[in-house]
């Protein structure tokens, strides 16, 4: 919180349009708040539910069953020699993470309105902390994938150690978009309805229920503008090891999520000082 300025004597100067000079240092100072907020979300989420943490297993499991039935059995899409549930689940995993991370971080400012209007802290902590909760869910779901692989006696590819490489762009994209939408929804409440719609839409245009190899070659690059395409393909590649990784998609995914992330932070910082006036 302390901030050395040219004004020497004083620790803090409040002026219009003055941004905290030491943005990063301030975030580091408040790092514990970041963890406490995430920890609160995790505790509170399951405290009053009867089956508690099991919920984070049920959601991806049920979606996987439905996708397997619809795409694998009814539509009979190719499975590339991998059990269809695993094909679906290994894509479900990053998508579920991305979509719930984006959903919660986009809603974080409005949900934390009481905090924003009564206490000062770097506002960025709100959308960021809500992503941590989803990362924990991700780990639980990943455990479930391991169980699933055991059941199907499926040996994952050794490339599975590269999984964090694809986890990162998903996080950056979710946080970047989360910054955009949480900041926008403070001013325009309409955006709280845009995000769920976008996510629903995104589920069908991302290669979750099918493999992206069914996309015609000439459209592949265009299709890969969706940063989640590269992430989901990457997850499949890491886990199944049977697919050939379409590198341009991975590259695009990394670049686009980085852009989304940086622009999100930039936009958020630009208008964060007026949040309290609108909430």
């Amino acid at each position, binding site marked *: 919180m302390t901030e050395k300025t040219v004004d020497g004597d004083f620790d*803090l100067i*409040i002026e219009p349009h003055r941004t905290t000079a030491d943005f990063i240092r301030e975030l580091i100072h408040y790092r514990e708040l970041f963890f*406490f907020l995430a920890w609160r979300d995790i505790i509170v989420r399951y405290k009053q539910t009867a089956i508690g943490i099991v919920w984070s297993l049920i959601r991806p499991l049920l979606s996987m069953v439905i996708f397997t039935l619809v795409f694998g059995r009814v539509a009979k899409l190719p499975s590339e020699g991998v059990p269809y549930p695993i094909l679906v689940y290994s894509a479900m995993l990053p998508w579920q993470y991305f979509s719930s991370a984006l959903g919660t971080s986009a809603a974080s400012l409005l949900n934390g309105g*009481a905090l924003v209007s009564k206490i000062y802290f770097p506002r960025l902590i709100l959308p960021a902390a809500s992503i941590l909760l989803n990362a924990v869910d991700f780990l639980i779901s990943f455990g479930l994938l391991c169980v699933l692989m055991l059941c199907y006696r499926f040996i994952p590819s050794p490339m599975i150690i590269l999984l964090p490489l694809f986890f990162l762009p998903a996080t950056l994209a979710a946080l970047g978009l989360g910054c955009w939408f949480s900041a926008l929804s403070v001013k*325009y409440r309409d955006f709280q309805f845009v995000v769920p719609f976008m996510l629903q839409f995104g589920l069908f245009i991302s290669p979750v229920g099918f493999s992206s190899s069914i996309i015609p070659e000439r459209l592949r690059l265009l299709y890969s503008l969706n940063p989640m395409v590269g992430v989901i393909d990457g997850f499949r590649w890491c886990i199944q090891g049977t697919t050939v990784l379409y590198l341009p998609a991975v590259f695009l995914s990394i670049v686009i999520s980085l852009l989304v992330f940086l622009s999100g932070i930039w936009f958020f910082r630009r208008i964060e000082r007026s949040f309290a006036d609108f909430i």
Partner: protein
Amino acid sequence: MSKTAIKIENLGKRYLLAHQAPHLLREALAYRGGRLVHRLTHPFERRAAPFTNVPSNSNKEEFWALRNLSFSVQEGERVGIIGRNGAGKSTLLKVLSRITEPTEGRVSLRGRVASLLEVGTGFHPELTGRENIYLNAAILGMTRAEIRRNFDAIVDFAGVEKFLDTPVKRYSSGMYVRLAFAIAAHLDSEILIVDEVLAVGDMEFQKKCMGKMDEVSHKEGRTILFVSHNMGAVSQLCSRAVCLERGHVVLDTNDVSEGVRQYMSASQDEAAMTEWRNPGNMFENQWFTPLRFGVYDEDGKPVSGAVDRRSRVWVEIEGVTATPNPALGVGYALYSNGALLYQSYQTDQAGGPDELQPLNQRVCLRTQIPVSLLNLGEQKIELLVQLHGRQWLVPPGRTTPSVFLRVDGMLNASPYCLTKRPGPVVLDVPWSLRPMSGE
């Protein structure tokens, strides 16, 4: 020799009132779209055609919550910020705590700022007391090491040892507030900003808070900015009073009780009437036509502003009688905070040694209001005139002449009596103590 802790220079904060309503993207789009449709359907109209039902920049009303506000606070000072609702007190505190950005001017602060604008912000009802201490302290900017160091002191101050592992949703409101205050009070900050926390919580808690704030400012030399509507608390705690009005400083004095008194009389200006005069021939009758009715101080002047419980206040009723009647009762009813407290007539003394003569010609009746019995708040005094058992001459109702008296300030010297007390009256009856020898 002491250094400046807070320096406020020409501070201003502007709100656009159109922004107060929740912003809808639809509005913005509807405006653009509406203009387009209008242009298409009225292609020959000139561009600057008047356009209704759309928000435009020109009808955004601006409102300066603070304007040209300047003052400095020295280290260790305890400043009470007083002023009516909407005077800008809360906006000032929000700017100082960096919650909202000023529109102009500058504030320089020395040292860490802890602000408590609301009790228990960030408390989560599902979490236990222990969990909430950690969470809330982190929200207020404490590091984990600091929390651990102060944990026992916080629990001790709040008195919630037994309930540490109970979710705070099961706490009584008193415990909840005590815990929240305790956390904020243990922040190691040089500047403590407190807004109206005393409005909640019981007497015991208020006394504890006051004690704690006194302690941090005296022993630890911390600077306190304290906003309250409770004038008793302000005069007890603060060493300086700054009064705001419409975003400006209108009064800044180190004589806190004088500042509080001035504020209280100023704040009465546009408020209540303390004297009624018959505008012509209202309530005209042969038995008693009221001419003047009001509340007056010791010097016989109409009361101005709020009074405290030590003041002496009289009701005077002036009127004319053409036909004297022994059944004529002239008096008043006192409604304390909206509820009838008592009625009093000049005939109350009839049959005793102090019985008054039947009223005749032009007279003035005078009686003292037992102000020391009154609770804090608004007292409405309504004129009553009747022929006992027969008819009302001044019928109670909307047109009844009434005047107002506001009781404010400390109830007693006791630190337990800073605010309005439960019950319609506040007693001023001494207690005695007699030591008993043990059996």
